[in-house]
């Protein structure tokens, strides 16, 4: 894949809720390896667009292509297995399960042994289990939660839950990672760390990242390209410098910063 060949292609996506047009004819491409920012005021339709991409809600119209395959209206689990992992704005961990189990669950699509072999505890299944457990521990280590693997996820502090969600999404071994406001509730030094961490993830896992973020300096410093939504419409698209100087953006969004 050449570098300007899109990994994710969003074509005229519209999503209505009754009379409300939450996403209105949005089109843009996300290229492999880039960190792509999606910004816009509250209620602009950013999360709705994430939900459409991951199949949690169908679009009213429009097409989605991921790695040259049409994924429009596919079931969420099929889209996840094709290589799109995500986190949620309003954290959706499996809150009564342990941190380790949360990560292992997302990893189960990479287990090869049959259910019968696993129930009987056959050697092939035990090997599989050891491998996924070790991999899950590595991911917990990566987000700094290795020491708390057996703690119940729901008891974690807010910031730790956000990091656990990232580890869980990575367990899918995705090509594209969607992060919905990962810096919400963090102070500025934590935001700084997160920024560096997202870059590290991109390099270490060959990821493409699509991220929603409110905090403009973070987005400007981190992202290769940025799309701006307002009332469901795409009003600007480009590199940080051009978006920052775009009159429509200043009017709509940056003006009140």
């Amino acid at each position, binding site marked *: 894949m050449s570098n300007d060949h899109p990994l994710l292609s969003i074509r005229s996506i519209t999503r209505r809720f009754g009379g409300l047009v939450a996403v209105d004819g949005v089109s843009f491409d996300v290229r492999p390896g880039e960190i792509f920012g999606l910004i816009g005021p509250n209620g602009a339709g950013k999360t709705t667009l994430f939900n459409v991409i*991951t*199949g*949690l809600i169908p679009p009213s119209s429009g097409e989605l292509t991921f790695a040259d395959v049409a994924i429009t209206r596919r*079931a*969420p*689990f099929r889209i*996840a*297995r094709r290589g799109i992992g*995500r986190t*949620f704005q309003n954290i*959706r*961990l*499996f*809150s*009564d*399960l342990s941190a380790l*189990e949360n990560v*292992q*669950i*997302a990893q*189960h*699509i990479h*287990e090869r042994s049959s*259910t019968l072999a*696993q*129930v*009987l*505890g056959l050697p092939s*299944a035990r090997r599989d*289990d050891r491998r996924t457990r070790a991999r899950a521990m590595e991911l917990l280590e990566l987000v700094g939660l290795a020491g708390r693997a057996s703690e119940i996820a729901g008891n974690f502090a807010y910031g730790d839950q956000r990091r656990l969600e990232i580890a*869980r*999404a990575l*367990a*899918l071994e995705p090509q594209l990672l969607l992060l919905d406001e990962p810096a919400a509730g963090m102070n500025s030094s934590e935001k700084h760390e997160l920024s560096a961490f997202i870059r590290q993830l991109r390099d270490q896992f060959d990821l493409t990242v699509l991220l929603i973020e409110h905090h403009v300096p973070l987005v400007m410093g981190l992202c290769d390209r940025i799309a701006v939504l307002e009332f469901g419409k795409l009003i600007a698209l480009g590199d940080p410098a051009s978006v920052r100087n775009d009159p429509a953006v200043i009017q709509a969004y940056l003006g009140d910063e």
Partner: protein
Amino acid sequence: MSDFFNTYGSLIVFMVLNALLALSLYLPLMAGQLSLASPGFFALGGYIAAIMSTKVFHVEAGAYPLGYVLIEMLLAALASGVLALIVGIPSLRLRGIYLALATIAFIEIVRVLSLTLEITGGAVGIFGIPQPFGTPLGYLWLALPLLIVAALAIWRLERVRVGRAFNAIRADELAAGAMGINTTYHKVLAFTLGAILAGIVGVVYAHVLNTWNARQGTFEAGVAYLTYVLIGGSRTVVGPIVGGLALTALPEVLRSLGGESLPTWLNNFLNSGQSIIYGTLIVLSTTFFPQGLITPRLLRFWRRTRASNDQ
């Protein structure tokens, strides 16, 4: 000792069988699906046993061969499994209370069919189901291995991929889908496994009771199994087993508490106040023990104390 077993033989067998029925409800609940369909599959299994043993296999004298019972169990498992797929695939699109209502409709349909069809003996039912064992207690040879195998299989299942997928769906179905879990497949699987177990138990029950009719496997029975699970505990395989064993024994224990020295009203209550006592227990346990009496936390605590005692 042998007196005890003769007096309480059938009670002990019913305790074990009811623990199995509680597990049949626990299975779909593992994947977050509240289904009351178990009695329908239980009734189906019972009719398969009744029809096979009285109309198909002709045994003139002596004990009914155990091999035939095993064949009936296999047939009941197959029939319940197929029926569960037919019922489960459309109804598991429904959530929460709607799934529960759909499963109640299902047991009503099974009941009405068994009242009207000729092969099920209409309102009278089927009599004279032959006995493979000389005493009620003999049925433990079937019921106990069944309970052990079912409990071990579920216990293992909870610790591997499929069980984790069930847990994930119970915790957050939408997030589970976004993590690559085929939620429909797993919900149907959990429902079908529960149905197969209920069907098999129906076979054993029909032989124990010696007769089978449309009063078996009603909505009330489903509520009783649900009580076993809710009071015993819905978060670990041990809970429904303890609930099924204890709550089946409870009415007998209460009856034996009664006697000459007690006032009549109290004796009456101890003999027939069952639904009041069950109801009170449900209210108390869901208020004070929302996860039931046996919780994962309690089991972890036991394991740790035992481990430290061993040292």
